[in-house]
């Protein structure tokens, strides 16, 4: 037991290697956490960050290894990031369009699209994107020009993620679009009477949320793995939901929340390596955190009701 806890600590915050691992895990959780927080704030239940991340990684890999692999770094790295955002946005917008046009609940469509995205990745790396030697089901390694600059083993995506959190905050609280998004989330009927089309907002919100998750996918392939393979994301998009809820859907609070879950993921990986404690146990912690955060909201409400009565 103590051995496991020691590994959990040294693998996350107790050593330099632990810190780099933690920050590496934090980057995708921060961006996907933002994606989920913005969607939930807009009253859109995007459970599909996982699939949007994979779609983003897929498009990023297509650009980096097939479509434009000879381009100079100045152009290729941004193109890879844009391709990732595009892939995620496409998956998000598809779910939004299904809701707007056909009334399909985005809860179910985004979940189903997670499975579709996973299969598309498998299809691509067994087919058109498979490495030239055809030895393993994975893509060619990214050309150096497509890789994100990194400091030690922490890639520039983390900086971008921090910037995005600030931008997300500004978008939500300082722009007309953010106002509309919050209005639809808080009072959909009132928002409709105010002339905001709920269908169009759902498509836009899901596309934006998907773009963020897709960007996280592009950063994973261009910053961490350097190639695409199955099992690229072991549930990052689901952890993102816990990240967003712990942050109480506030973009800036997503930063510490993602860091907490990043440290947990890094520590759990070390715990599995060194003490044989299965890393899947972190999902128990994620589930419990969601319930505890939810429990806190129940207490707040009860406290508020008492204050009103008294």
């Amino acid at each position, binding site marked *: 037991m103590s051995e496991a806890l020691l590994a959990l600590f040294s693998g996350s915050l107790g050593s330099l290697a632990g810190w780099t691992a933690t920050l590496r895990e934090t980057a995708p959780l921060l961006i996907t956490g933002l994606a989920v927080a913005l969607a939930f704030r807009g009253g859109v*239940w995007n*459970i599909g960050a996982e699939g949007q991340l994979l779609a983003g990684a897929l498009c990023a890999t297509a650009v980096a290894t097939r479509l434009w692999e000879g381009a100079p770094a100045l152009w290729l790295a941004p193109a890879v990031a844009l391709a990732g955002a595009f892939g995620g946005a496409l998956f998000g917008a598809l779910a939004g369009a*299904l809701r707007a046009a*056909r*009334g*399909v*609940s985005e*809860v*179910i*469509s985004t*979940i*189903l*699209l997670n*499975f*579709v995205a*996973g*299969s*598309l990745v*498998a*299809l691509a790396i*067994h*087919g058109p994107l498979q490495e030239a030697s055809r030895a393993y089901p994975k893509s060619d390694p990214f050309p150096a020009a497509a890789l994100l600059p990194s400091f030690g083993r922490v890639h520039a995506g983390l900086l971008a993620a921090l910037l995005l959190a600030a931008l997300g905050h500004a978008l939500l609280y300082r722009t007309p679009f953010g106002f509309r998004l919050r209005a639809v989330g808080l009072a959909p009927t009132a928002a409709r009477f105010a002339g905001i089309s709920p269908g169009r907002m759902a498509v836009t919100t899901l596309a934006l949320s998907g773009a963020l998750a897709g960007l996280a996918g592009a950063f994973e392939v261009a910053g961490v793995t350097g190639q695409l393979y199955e099992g690229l994301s072991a549930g990052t998009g*689901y952890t993102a*939901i*816990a990240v967003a*809820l712990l942050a109480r859907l506030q973009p800036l609070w997503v930063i510490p929340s993602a860091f907490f879950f990043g440290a947990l993921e890094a520590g759990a990986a070390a715990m599995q390596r060194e003490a044989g404690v*299965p890393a*899947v*146990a*972190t*999902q*128990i*912690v*994620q*589930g*419990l955190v*969601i*319930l505890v955060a*939810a*429990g806190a*909201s*129940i207490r707040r*409400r009860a406290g508020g*009701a008492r204050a009103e*009565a008294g």
Partner: protein
Amino acid sequence: MEALLEATLRLAAPLLLAALGELVIERAGLIDIGIEGTMLTGAFAGFVVAVATGSPLAGVAAAAVAGTAVGALFAAFAVFGRVDQIVVGTAVNLLALGATGAGSRALYGGAPPSAPTLGALAEGPLAELPWLGALVFAQTPFVLAAWALALAIGVVLARTRPGLRLRAVGESARAADAEGVSVPRVRAAAVLIGSSLAGVAGAALTLAQSDSFTEGMTAGRGFIALAIVIFGRWSALGVLLASLFFGCATALQFRLQARGVGIPYPVFLMFPYLVTLAVLALATGRARAPADLGRAYAREAS
């Protein structure tokens, strides 16, 4: 043809059981996306108990109990705590995935044994009868139980007082409350009953369709059950037909796959989810959900 129908019934059974559970819950006005995790928990609990006792029936009972326990967790937060149902469902799914994964590694160290399974209802001459043999006697008890439950739930919902109360709570919690029906109690009861069915649906995977447990083995079947409830337009008969449709689609998929028609394997993996999306896109719009579906109910302060 006979073989295809046989496979359709067999593959539809777990989906039907889970979808019936979700139907009961949704008619009471709640959306439980935790049905996936509930099913997974049932699959694991059923497997563990069947292995330990050597009795598949004990496994089924354990699966029902485990499902009910997960349902109690969902009800505590979503019904009594009035926390958003999607949030609680997500937490349930994560907890179930983590707990069953860690539990299975702790108990079996990555190499789970074979569980005793529930076999066909009858063997020998009965199972060899034309049609009737393959469609009834060669099937496992899960299939018959699922059909019987579909019938029972249809009748209870449409024709009995508890069924009427359940529907009233789902259509208009406020009106039901005014009539003296305890909304939280009816909703909690619906969640417990529905979740126990989802647990049994999980056991159908570990104690009939296979004899083993693997991490995350429900692979989205609980989510497909959610779609089946919509496709089946929130009626027991509709859910029965919709799950047969999905069972048949899966059976056809396996056939094509076995024939090796040159379609890459991942396309088959995608197939059930694409079919579900297509069905939802075509089916919704016309169907009408219970009016209070997904809304937490709080009595106004008086």
